[in-house]
């Protein structure tokens, strides 16, 4: 119990000052951005295995093994997703640089709607695979569309972005990430290689 002598009354303040110092140290320690970002647990992990039908040829299935051998960008989209429309011109400009293959991951969509959407706005994708029920998307940990992954030649996820891509983001993050894993610019398979 406080003695109420003048000196004793300062004890609570002194205790609190020490506490505040400790909390300040805590804030300082937590400034590390790794603790702030919501890192995808999949970064630097192998991409999940899948076997999904090609949107334009529903009888043919594409697996992860088919895409390995060179890096590729996997872009999650749906015809129901307004932000994907906003993203579409940005993605088209990037695909036209032919830096890597851009694989479309059509998520929880009606195949007819999806094909019509691509006919109307243009198809920037090297190949589009369709996850109609959204089961494979769970393995990828997909939050919402649009969402974009960079997978290297060995099938390891290297980079991920939730939300629409922008030109600044592509120039500032995606392209450097590609350069880091593909310095020889072998990302685009030679002509004649079928998706």
């Amino acid at each position: 119990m406080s003695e109420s002598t003048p000196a004793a009354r300062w004890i609570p303040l002194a205790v609190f000052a020490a506490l505040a110092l400790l909390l300040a140290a805590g804030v300082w320690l937590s400034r590390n951005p790794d603790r702030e970002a919501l890192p995808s647990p999949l970064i630097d992990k192998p991409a999940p295995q899948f076997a999904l039908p090609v949107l334009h040829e529903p009888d043919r299935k594409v697996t992860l093994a088919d895409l390995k051998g060179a890096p590729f960008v996997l872009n999650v989209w749906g015809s129901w997703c307004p932000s994907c429309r906003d993203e579409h011109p940005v993605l088209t400009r990037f695909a036209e640089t032919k830096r890597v293959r851009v694989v479309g991951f059509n998520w929880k969509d009606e195949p007819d709607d999806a094909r019509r959407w691509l006919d109307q706005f243009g198809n920037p994708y090297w190949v589009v695979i369709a996850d109609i029920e959204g089961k494979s998307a769970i393995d990828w940990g997909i939050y919402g569309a649009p969402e974009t992954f960079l997978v290297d030649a060995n099938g390891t996820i290297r980079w991920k972005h939730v939300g629409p891509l922008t030109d600044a983001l592509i120039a500032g993050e995606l392209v450097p990430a590609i350069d880091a894993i593909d310095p020889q610019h072998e990302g685009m398979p030679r002509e004649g290689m079928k998706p």
Partner: protein
Amino acid sequence: MLPELGQLALVLALLVAGMQAVLPLLGAQRGRVSWMSVARPAAYLQFALVLLAFAILTHAFTTQDFSLRYVATNSNSLLPMVYRYTAVWGAHEGSLLLWALILSLWTAAVARFSQRLPLPVIARVLGVMGLVAVGFLAFLLFTSNPFERLLPAAGEGRDLNPLLQDPGMIIHPPMLYLGYVGFSVPFAFAIAALLDGKVDTRWLRWTRPWTNVAWGFLTCGIALGSWWAYYELGWGGWWFWDPVENASFMPWLAGAALLHSQAVTEKRGSFRGWTLLLAIATFSLSLLGTFLVRSGVLTSVHAFAADPMRGLFILIFLGTVVGGSLLLYALRAPSDNDGAPFAASSRETLLLANNLLLSTACAMVLIGTLYPLLADALELGKISVGPPYFALLFTVLMAPLVLLLPFGPLTKWQREQASRPFAMLVPWAGLAIGVGIATFFLAPQSPWKVAAGLAGATWVAAGTVRFVWTRFNSQGRRFTPEMVGMTFAHVGIAVFLIGALLVEGLAQQRELALAPGGTVALGNKTFVFDGVQHRQGPNYEADHGTVRVFDGNRLVTTLHPEKRRYASGGQVMTEAGIAPGLRGDLYVALGEPLGGDAWAVRVHAKPFVRWIWIGALFMAIGGFITATDRRFRRQDPAA
């Protein structure tokens, strides 16, 4: 347009709160009535504005406005309607808005129910609450704006954290915040008294119901959180000494000490300085709890937001409010020696012991919670303080509290012949010891825990009944709501002791792989696993298990534990199948699928686990009943 209106409402609320803080405080210092008179209207206006902002955010959730970043990250088109309401406070920004809303609600309530207080007092109290509101509203607007737009709008939301898609989570945060923020009332009174330079016991009496109500809400909030963790996390535990749990438990302990010391100061005039310090400490611990949860400085299973900017902001805010208050205390605190003198054997002494034990327990929880941070800061490595530390120290500190508890109400103020309460309680001590010895030899396992739980509960309950009996036989048979409330709360402690120690001592569990048709025996029950079916929920797919429980050949109950996979993010959640009962719960959780139709299945028997929450409910009800005592609202000052 609506979200912009919400944003505008928050900006205006900040300005109004600033006015509510500055003018009345200055007015009270300089004796200007017109400045002081601003306090009440400003309090009402601030409440209306924050309520408007909150309603607009709720509307954005119910109408799925994914152009708001906060809505897009915490809702989803598949989210059922009821969770769209709770999603409003499902993450950082919204829960801060709820904090601000409840603070403005309490402020408006103080403005409304303080008609009999002198104007300078109420001006100072509302001014201090306004200052706190300025801090929170600025924090909202500058670092955590719930109305931030997402351009272009998201087509689909990321969904509410599935852990929070649960009925218990609907009322847990509001209850907790009603408690946290409610302590701002005694805090504001303490600051007002320090500014004024004198502690008038009449005003102190006026704050007592507020402290009791806040403590009651906090008790409910903590109990709901514990109940939620029990059935939602799938581990069958009810308290984990997790940093976030500790963050709410520290103000609870300090608040319990404050309840008792306020009674002493109000009735006897003693412990004035100490009561003020406790009032400051209790609310400061509420703020510290908010800081710990919201800054991401400590990591825990509950970790919600982690952002150093936010951490820095709350730290500065915390430093200003708490540092300023304690500085004021150091400069102006009244002497503790003013009150009526009391002898070593008196109720004052017992309540002093109560306060010392509760405050020490609170400090112990604080040290345990922050020690990992200290070790990290001093580069001693990453460590965590586990339940063994907390459980041991807490038991050591609470055992004397339980022993002394029945004496308190039976002992007179000021001076008591020690032999009198002893004589009254000896038979009941004998009964408790008898119960303890009997259960020690009858308990199937952990005899010490079970015996201690039942003996302690018998002692507290019988001692409390003895007090009721004494009152009943006294002249007038007067039972004030204050006494009824105290009786409820103390019986609640007895009920809680039974729940906590019996479930710790007698719980049984087994985990094993079961194929459909497989059985597992636990105690006298047999659990038959009937396999797992696929089910589609509104926004998840579930593996829906069926487990029948038999007692001999009689079917006792059928349980349905689930593993849910949420469509939006793919998180997997465990829903335990629970058969609740007063004598104990049967609890089944699904583990991992093991191939074929086999699953890892965990079965628990949890004897008397409900008594933990029933006990907490009794304590909360006790707090609420005490608050209804008319004596606290009586006009004439008692001598």
